[in-house]
């Protein structure tokens, strides 16, 4: 498949690994903050290719993992309302809330549909005029523009039964919170698809304020290894900056149409990140012009929710302070079939990837 296979070329990968081995002169810890990277790194067995002194850790890059229990509990509460159809990305249905999950509620008869796109959810609304269609909007800057387009279409067509329950979040504030929280890092493998939308300039503050290098990275093994090589060189030469490895999709300024769409429909707000707490101006909510689509505005609900199992260390894992193997629950009672925390639920979660794709040296 074009633009995939060429970047999985084994010879390129072998050479890059060789160059990495020749470049290492310290210990290095690099954090990736994108579920797609977590998953790709484990899937291709990249840790098994790297020298011992290059460590990769996962940050809060999985939008499912950082979605709070309260969001799931509220979504479940909405799903129990009469005449409501919940539409959601598939990733979210197994996430445990305080006492249930969307998947369990679906099995018990709640009207919950999996969609691949906000546009599918809007179509549900067109076809079910008597129902309230609530779309669970999760995802970072990569996904939020699609939701923005959907809201604009709903507004244009005056669709009165379509609503958004937004948990959209922004990546840079979380990265800053990670650094301030004390994670010991030498650089960031930056999310290539977020940057395809925002442009690479959103990461400029990281080398400027914190002297950490950032490489905006693609998702194939050659991309990831080249980025690691670039980060190693930045550390060795003490030249932290933002560089784009994924230049076939990312520019300095990004996708201006998508950015305009986002700022037309959304404004930033404080948001609660599972494991990180509240991070100021790290979430997206609908602007006043579109607040009629905000389900929390139309149908506010209060729920009482339970925090995660007190032994669960998803928070520290998301902050890059611990690894899944440091968790007493990992693979003992918390595993993909029985996830206790969000890091295990999502296919892109650090614990799920670590468990599924355990590498062999």
């Amino acid at each position, binding site marked *: *498949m074009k*633009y995939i296979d060429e970047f999985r070329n084994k010879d*390129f990968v072998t050479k890059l690994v060789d*160059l990495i081995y020749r470049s290492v002169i310290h210990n290095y810890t690099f954090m990736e903050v994108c579920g797609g*990277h977590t998953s790709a790194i484990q899937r291709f067995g990249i840790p098994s290719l790297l020298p011992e002194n290059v460590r990769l850790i996962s940050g809060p890059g999985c939008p499912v993992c950082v979605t709070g229990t309260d969001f799931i509990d509220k979504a479940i509460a909405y799903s129990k309302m009469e005449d409501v159809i919940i539409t959601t990305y598939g990733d979210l249905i197994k996430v445990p809330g305080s006492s249930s999950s969307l998947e369990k509620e679906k099995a018990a008869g709640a009207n919950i549909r999996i969609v691949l796109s906000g546009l599918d959810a809007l179509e549900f609304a067109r076809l079910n005029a008597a129902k309230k269609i609530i779309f669970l909007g999760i995802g*970072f800057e990569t996904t939020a523009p699609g939701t923005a387009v959907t809201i604009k279409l709903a507004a244009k067509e005056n669709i009165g039964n379509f609503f958004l329950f937004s948990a959209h979040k922004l990546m840079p504030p979380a990265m800053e919170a990670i650094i301030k929280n004390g994670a010991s890092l030498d650089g960031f493998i930056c999310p290539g698809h977020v940057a395809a*939308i925002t442009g690479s300039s959103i990461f400029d503050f990281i080398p400027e304020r914190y002297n950490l290098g950032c490489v905006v990275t693609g998702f194939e093994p*050659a991309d990831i290894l080249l980025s690691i090589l670039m980060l190693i060189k930045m550390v060795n030469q003490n030249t932290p900056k933002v560089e784009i490895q994924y230049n076939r999709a990312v520019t300095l300024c990004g996708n201006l*149409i998508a950015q305009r769409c986002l700022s037309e429909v959304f404004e930033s707000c404080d948001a609660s990140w599972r494991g990180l707490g509240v991070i100021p101006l790290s979430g997206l909510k609908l602007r006043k012009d579109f607040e009629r689509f905000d389900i929390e505005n139309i149908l506010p609900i209060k729920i009482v929710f339970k925090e995660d199992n007190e032994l669960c260390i998803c928070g520290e894992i998301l902050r890059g302070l611990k690894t899944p193997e440091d968790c007493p629950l990992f693979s003992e009672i918390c595993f993909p079939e029985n996830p206790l925390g969000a890091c295990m639920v999502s296919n892109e979660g650090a614990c799920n990837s670590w468990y599924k794709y355990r590498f062999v040296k």
Partner: protein
Amino acid sequence: MCLSIPAKIISIDGSMAEVSAGGAIFSAGLHIIENARVGDYILLHAGFAIQKISEKEAEETLKLFEEMNNSLNE
């Protein structure tokens, strides 16, 4: 969620396109990219084309890999 793959535009109808990944056909909204043409490769994410893939830049990256591969010393 970050799942986004390169897919080739095979037909366009207004602001929607059909795109192919290995022959499997998906719908893609073209609302946030401009000047999309049949034959272009785009990044498909959550039902939308979020960016066009630059053939020129892709080739440059591959050339870089080739050069690394061919070099005898670092």
